[in-house]
């Protein structure tokens, strides 16, 4: 800006100098032009308002719709069944850990036998895979009518034998077998033919070995096995009653819903008939309306069938609680391994809690009223604090927000945790230490990341990062990390890593700007006092730029929470609240997110359904979150800005 001269001045046409006073519709055209541009400027404001309007238009009906659905859920008695059914699910968890404990205990005796058996069978399958083609052609030849001449069969047979022998020789035999056994296996495998269905002798021996060992183990841990079986059996009578009630309730609900559909239809027809002028048409419409008239479901009567069995249900619960408590008391302390012992102990501790929960649930049955109205606050609570998002369910749809929010937040947290140090470090280095050539490498590369479309990164997450993380998690020397080895390739950690990568350019550029804006005078002062470069950077420059850095982190957070494609592809899409009881390893669980759920489900729901509206509600929340994050970022940037004051 040193030289305010114009290198090549634009053609200022002589036209310009002509006096022009004409007006358009009595308005100076200059004003029209001004208004035109002003109007376009307000487009950003208008769009923001429009976004909110359209989201609200599609989504605001969610609350009444959902309220109605929850009301039906209550009146048909589904809620009543869930009072008992929900805590009863705990039984599954307990018995599954008990079952694991049992099998772990049994394994102490039978593991080697089972491994030998399994390994042998695995080898056999490998041989079969390798000789499929020859054995297939042989078996086809054998089935042919009229039968093929024996010499042709013999050729096929010898081919198969050759192939089998080659395959058997090429296998790698595990150390589980002694040298003699390996030889025998190889011989037996080479002799496999499609006609003989019996197992080769050695395999038979191995299988028999395992059966014997297993039996021995079962006698040794008889009490544990028995306790487990008893515990599982205990639930049966109670479950039977509950299932019966559930079926009844579901019928009621289905009838009620069907009635509503028909009734709306009938009312619409009647309305049309009232408007219709042609008497013939009118008559036919009225007739049609009458045809679709159905008896309303007598909810009060039907609910009677359920509530009347409350006492029976309570008795069953009590019985069940007693049985399992007894089972807990006789649960033996001697399990085969340390892991099994902890599991058994956990179950022993868990059963009384479970029994207590069941009793408490049973006590609730009395106070439950089928005709208690569902207040709007309950509905708002059910959405914002609901812990399950269940759709397309044959039982009942629930739109609880918490699983999605928790998934989004955990992923965003991981991403920010990774991206912040990396991008701040990179910003500090490039801004303060890097040579010009290094700057010309680092800056464009990081800015290039911004141009990578998110769907490409999502794909990278599926094809590359997922496998990488899984492989790494299986390294033996990393097993101290909680959650390793991981179960799912696609999980929150994977998504968090990729989102961190996406957030780096935003956070890097803004942080670098913030560092750049630190006044030169601070650096002078620090240098003149004899500070080293590092001291100047960390005691003066970074603290002075901290507001910019914080605001950069917040904007990065906004970007991360709003990102769709990466989480949709990579987060694993399991709609459940992450199980934080697993400790920090929980980050390796799959989850679903606010953005992902919209992208995944909106395409498949019909307009105006409660599900559609719920998804728009999620959109509204996302929109509000993004505005909030932006506002916070601005507030932070303003809060500490001493050198601009």
């Amino acid at each position, binding site marked *: 800006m040193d030289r305010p001269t114009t290198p090549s001045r634009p053609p200022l046409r002589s036209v310009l100098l002509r006096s022009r006073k004409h007006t358009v519709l009595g308005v100076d055209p200059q004003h029209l032009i001004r208004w035109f541009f002003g109007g376009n400027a307000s487009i950003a404001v208008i769009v923001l308002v429009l976004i909110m309007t359209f989201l609200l238009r599609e989504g605001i009906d969610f609350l009444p719709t959902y309220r109605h659905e929850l009301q039906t859920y209550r009146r048909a008695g589904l809620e009543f069944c869930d009072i008992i059914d929900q805590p009863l699910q705990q039984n599954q968890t307990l018995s599954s850990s008990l079952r694991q404990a049992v099998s772990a205990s049994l394994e102490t005796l039978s593991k080697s036998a089972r491994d030998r058996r399994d390994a042998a069978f695995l080898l056999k399958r490998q041989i079969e895979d390798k000789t499929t083609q020859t054995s297939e052609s042989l078996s086809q030849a054998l089935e042919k009518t009229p039968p093929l001449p024996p010499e042709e069969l013999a050729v096929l047979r010898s081919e198969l034998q050759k192939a089998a022998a080659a395959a058997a020789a090429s296998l790698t035999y595990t150390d589980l077998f002694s040298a003699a056994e390996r030889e025998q296996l190889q011989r037996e495998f080479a002799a496999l033919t499609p006609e003989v269905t019996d197992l080769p002798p050695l395999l038979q021996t191995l299988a028999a070995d395992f059966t014997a060992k297993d039996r021995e183990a079962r006698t040794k841990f008889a009490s544990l096995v028995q306790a487990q079986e008893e515990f599982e059996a205990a639930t049966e009578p109670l479950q039977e009653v509950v299932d019966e009630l559930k079926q009844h309730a579901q019928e009621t609900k289905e009838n009620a819903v069907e009635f509503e559909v028909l009734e709306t239809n009938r009312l619409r027809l009647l309305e049309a008939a009232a408007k219709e002028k042609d008497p013939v048409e009118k008559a036919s419409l009225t007739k049609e309306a009458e045809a679709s008239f159905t008896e309303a479901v007598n909810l009060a009567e039907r609910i009677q069938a359920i509530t009347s069995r409350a006492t029976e249900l309570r008795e069953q619960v009590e019985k069940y609680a007693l049985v399992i408590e007894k089972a807990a008391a006789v649960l033996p302390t001697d399990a085969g391994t340390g892991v099994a012992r902890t599991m058994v102990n956990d179950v022993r501790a868990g059963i009384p809690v479970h029994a207590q929960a069941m009793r408490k649930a049973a006590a609730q049955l009395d106070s439950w009223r089928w005709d208690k109205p569902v207040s709007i606050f309950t509905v708002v609570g059910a959405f914002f604090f609901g812990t399950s998002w269940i759709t397309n369910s044959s039982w009942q749809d629930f739109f609880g927000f918490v699983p999605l929010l928790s998934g989004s937040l955990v992923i965003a947290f991981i991403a920010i945790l990774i991206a912040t140090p990396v991008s701040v470090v990179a910003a500090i280095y490039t801004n303060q230490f890097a040579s010009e050539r290094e700057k010309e490498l680092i800056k464009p590369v990081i800015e290039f990341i911004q141009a990578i479309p998110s769907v490409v990164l999502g794909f990278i997450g599926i094809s590359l990062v997922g496998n990488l993380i899984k492989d790494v998690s299986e390294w033996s020397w990393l097993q101290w990390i909680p959650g390793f080895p991981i179960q799912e390739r696609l999980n929150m950690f994977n998504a968090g890593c990729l989102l961190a990568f996406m957030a780096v350019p935003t956070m890097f550029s803004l942080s670098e700007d913030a560092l750049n804006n630190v006044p030169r005078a601070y650096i002078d002062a*620090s*240098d003149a006092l*004899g500070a080293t470069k590092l001291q100047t950077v960390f005691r003066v420059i970074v603290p002075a730029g901290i507001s910019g850095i914080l605001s950069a982190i917040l904007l990065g957070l906004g970007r991360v929470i709003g990102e769709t494609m990466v989480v949709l592809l990579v987060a694993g899409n399991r709609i459940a609240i992450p199980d934080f009881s697993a400790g920090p390893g929980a980050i390796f669980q799959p989850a679903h997110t606010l953005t992902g759920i919209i992208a995944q489900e909106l395409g498949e729901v019909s307009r105006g359904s409660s599900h559609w509206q719920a998804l728009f509600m999620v959109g509204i929340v996302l929109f509000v979150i993004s505005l909030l994050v932006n506002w916070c970022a601005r507030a932070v940037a303003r809060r500490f800005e*001493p050198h601009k004051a």
Partner: protein
Amino acid sequence: MSADSAAKTTPPPVVQVRDMDFCYGASKALFDINLEVKYHRVTALIGPSGCGKSTLLRCINRMNDRVPSARVTKGEVLVKGKNIHDADVDLTQLRKQVGMVFQKSNPFPKSIYENVAYGLRIHGEKNKNALDEAVERSLRHAALWDELKDRLSANALALSGGQQQRLCIARAIATLPDVLLMDEPCSALDPISTLKIEELMSQLAREYTIVIVTHNMQQAVRISDFTAFLHLGKLVEFSPTEELFTNPREKLTEAYLRGTFS
């Protein structure tokens, strides 16, 4: 001014500049400078804009090092008898012992206490008592203690311009430097603040050796013992202030003092 005691001990000059040439890239900024700064005296550098006063000042604590391609091409600068361009000179130690105050006050956006303690902290002082003591001593020296002792934790940027500049002086003397370089410290201040800082300087001269660049000739007369006049990168005249202003040896100096050019 305690001229008697100085005459008795005649301590060696603290800063000596010998035959120094200084270049920014290809263009020479200072030519053949010779200067001796006496112990516990105030030396003023005057001259028209762009004559190289500030450059010369910045040569003394090597602040010019940060400008790429700027370097001393001939001669040497000695501080406390040591050539500061020697390989075994630690820049941080040099700057610790040669403090500097800038034209525009530049306190850090931290508390008053932290500003003063900064120099000590970066040189490894962790003892809380020692820090407290040094902060109090420096603020007292800078005549700020009475004004600020109750709000040491307030942000330094909330102070007035004059207070900020005195705080910067306090910050510079907290590390007990031998030499204090001042680069037009009053040019951005109102007359009252200027007066306060000038008073402060004459007090500081008892304990520190001061080199000050100033635009204001009256100021040089008021506060300095020696004055150097620079013109176009050359040291035209260097003599005791009284002598230079009343009886300049060079024609150029006389012309400048009379205001024939500026």
